[in-house]
């Protein structure tokens, strides 16, 4: 770990200003950042601890939705009665992630910003365009079973590891921010994470210093909400693939998929195809997929997992 300076921010705009300086980073739960700092994959020179900024509340929005503060822990969010009642998909996805200890510390914004778990990213001896732009992708042609099958590039086949974000993608969440000039904006989650392209080290559309203050959920959409996480062991494992679906009684619905791309993956045409069944929807979701030999199985797996979800919804 490299030496760094530390401050505890008292004001969001001041925090954003401080974070706009080169080498500065926000610190919230620290469950991913500190691990990466220990092995110097992250090496900030200055940390701005945002825990005193008061973004730890869950409040209703005027249009019947819910605003979840950036600092609400994953545990608190998943346990909130309003979330459980109106957005059960989000609770189910969140508790499928990490472990109880980590969820007690991890925050809403931090979960969105966690970095890929690609093993070549985590090993500083290996090439990785995300860690060291221009060094190449170690995972392409290497061990890639867990990695992306769609939306990837020649530069990067990493996946986004979050469960929470997959549910938020299905629920059309909006990320609220404030920038160093004090201007706020609302970023639809679809536009929040970027595909790798030839700049996989740039993972979100946040600008320098821009601070996440909350994630808002539109008003509840009902339906049967199912999060199905496929993993090699029963708990505390990243998804091989995951399916977040909201299915209405007429068979229509929406679906987002985790473990397949650089961001939570959702395709309009797939939503439109939901009532035609899993094969149709999965076909749209994974159109143009370019899997590796190691992870080609994710293509049929997504379809089969979605079929299971649909069957479960029909039985509900």
């Amino acid at each position: 770990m490299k030496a760094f300076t530390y401050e505890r921010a008292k004001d969001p705009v001041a925090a954003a200003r401080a974070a706009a300086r080169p080498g500065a980073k926000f610190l919230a739960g620290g469950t991913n950042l500190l691990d990466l700092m220990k092995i110097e994959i992250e090496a900030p020179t200055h940390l701005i601890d945002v825990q005193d900024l008061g973004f730890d509340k869950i409040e209703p929005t005027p249009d019947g939705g819910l605003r979840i503060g950036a600092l609400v822990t994953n545990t608190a969010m998943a346990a909130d009665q309003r979330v459980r009642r109106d957005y059960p998909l989000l609770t189910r996805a969140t508790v499928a992630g990490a472990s109880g200890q980590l969820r007690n510390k991890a925050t809403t914004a931090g979960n969105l910003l966690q970095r890929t778990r690609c093993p070549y990213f985590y090993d500083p001896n290996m090439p990785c365009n995300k860690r060291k732009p221009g060094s190449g992708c170690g995972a392409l042609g290497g061990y890639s079973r867990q990695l992306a099958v769609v939306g990837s590039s020649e530069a990067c086949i990493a996946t986004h590891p979050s469960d929470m974000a997959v549910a938020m993608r299905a629920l059309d969440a909006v990320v609220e921010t404030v920038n160093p000039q004090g201007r706020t904006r609302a970023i639809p989650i679809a536009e929040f994470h970027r595909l790798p392209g030839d700049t996989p080290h740039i993972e979100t559309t946040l600008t320098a210093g821009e601070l996440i203050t909350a994630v808002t959920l539109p008003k509840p959409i009902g339906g049967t909400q199912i999060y199905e996480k496929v993993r090699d062991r029963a708990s505390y494992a990243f998804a091989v693939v995951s399916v977040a679906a909201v299915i209405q009684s007429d068979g229509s619905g929406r679906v987002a998929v985790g473990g397949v791309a650089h961001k939570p993956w959702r395709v309009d045409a797939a939503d439109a195809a939901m009532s035609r069944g899993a094969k149709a929807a999965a076909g749209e979701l994974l159109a143009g997929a370019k899997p590796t030999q190691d992870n080609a199985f994710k293509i049929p797996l997504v379809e089969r997992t979605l079929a299971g979800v649909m069957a479960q919804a029909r039985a509900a």
Partner: protein
Amino acid sequence: MKFETPAQTNPIDRLKVVGQAHDRIDGPLKTSGLATYAYEHHREVPNVAYGYVVGSAVGKGRIKSLGLDEARRAPGVVTIVTAQDAGPLGKGDRNTAKLLGGPEVDHYHQAVAVVVAETFEQARAAAALVRVDYERGDGRFDLDELLKTAPLTGGDSQEGSGSSPEHRVGKFEEAFGAAPVKLDQRYTTPDQSHAMMEPHATIAAWQGDELTLWTSNQMIAWNKADMAKTLGIPKEKVRLISPYVGGGFGGKLFLRADALMAALAARAAKRPVKLALQRPLMANNTTHRPATRQRVRIGATKDGTITAIAHESGSGDLENGGPETAVNQTELLYAGANRLTSMRLAVLDLPEGNAMRAPGEAPGMMALEIAIDEMAEQLGMDPIAFRIKNDTQVDPKTPTRKFSERNLIRCMQEGAERFGWDKRRAKPAQVRDGRWLVGMGVAAAFRNHVSRPSGARVRLGRDGVVTVESDMTDIGTGSYTIMAQTAAEMMGLPLDKVVVKLGDSSFPASAGSGGQWGAANATSGVYAACVKLREAVAQRLGFNAADVAFEDGQVRSGNRALPLTQAAQDGELLGEDRIEFGKLGKTFQQSTFGAHFVEVGVDAYTGVTRVRRMLAVCAAGRILNPQTARSQVIGAMTMGVGGALMEELAVDTRFGFFVNHDLAGYEVPVHADIPHQEVIFLDEADATANPLKAKGVGELGLCGVGAAVANAIYNATGVRVRDYPITLEKHLERLPSIA
């Protein structure tokens, strides 16, 4: 004490303390955090500096240049040691790879430097500033390719299973060719990591030319010798202290880089140094269970009598390494007049392959016991009936040589009844529970028993407390407890009157912990020492040693009885001895047996397998403490589930390393993966084994589990997978259609 003839009735047979379930006597220390592990000896070793190991960034190659200036100038740095300034180093007898690389690099993450600083954080930060310029070499990393030309090679696991390059009985090829029912299949097992909770860790301190190591190690005497040999100093100058070990599974049998680098660092720093191997280094820096490529052929008559059986295995290791002895059990487990076993060894430049819990049998049984299941199905026989039909009570190669005890059939029958085997549908893919395809599987368990000399010293103090001293280790197994039970039984005392001190090379050398030999041999050493102490007590109290009974704190002979404490009222009494073994292990084949039963559910949609319940029935001689033995077996069963369903070190054949080298990438079972587990021990005592009449059990619990899981999956799905681990993609698209 030389054990040369089968044990007669002896004080252990009273079974007042031995054979009874007892909590671990070291449990309170562990649950309260007072048990000091290698990294935690703050009180004994103040003023430590912290070491951080730098692992090689290449799988094979040569260091062109080392840039240490920046690191040396970093805050808090005390010293840096590399091969350039470590002085001449030898190599221990038991590690294949050099523990400090440079200029030649033999494998990925081989230690190339240790950075010593005032704090751990400073050492870690400075280690990142060490600049190493490598010339990448052409490594040999592709096992399948290399096995095409690999020679037949014999070997010994150093843990109880060994085989010659090729072992033949009768005429296998002829008999197999003529057999009316045949099976010829190939199976693979991957490289596996021990992934124990406590990483390899050592504190090293020099006083003049004497070195003391507080380390996490299973085999104190081996490592004292190998450390001395590596450093080129006399053995007498090295002391190892390892009272508690947070798991080893064979990964801590041998001298490893933590101990050597700590010793070199402390010498250079001129003060004690502590270091632990960081988790991402462990998979590639230390040893692992080597991958295997196996072929099993079985020929049988139509009534299910095996007439020909062959098991061939290929594995790889560094130059001068050894093969994974995966075929040993096939020489002994089933009858058959014509037999062939053989091993091939490829030279690989991947990290060192070596012993991991039940080396040989664990991967060997994963293949053989699927093959037996497949053969039974071909014959239209129940797999238990097929095993019973081909049971043998003698070594198939030397029929005059009997098994000392062999209760495989009883294990199978008892287990079948307890598990409800009669409810299993012979035809696969018949049982559904919602979205789950449900199936049952069985496999035999087999692991050899190993006798090794083992010493101990027992003291009777003035306070009437008996203290046992031995360099035996407790790697989480219960050694403290069963050695205390042995001394209590022998001296006629309750358990709380016995204190056990372990893991110090200044104590008598024991069998150590490995190859499931620890319990039976270490307690036999205590038995021998207690016989000596009993003689000393009898003599002090004026008894004729031959007819004295020790019970309830009294020493009795005829009508005369005196309190045991009286013997020590003028000063403590001491008994020291060592158990040694004659030829009984050659006269008889001493092995342990069991049966594993598993029920699984396979998700019809996703192909994910989850274990629903497990049962092990074990016949392993006298069980010294059914509670700690059960813990050993359920732990082994859990490890077996890991091997069956998820554990695999992924090899990158371009860079030559294990890619998933942390606990996020290398998954082992969590609690949610392990539901109901049951263990039954058959009442057995093997008088040919030792005075305790006990054998090993800790590895038996693993051998066969993987195949039982695999067979259950087949029974659930009708899809046979022969490549471990059985992750969902290996059967996903062949699963029965979703109704």
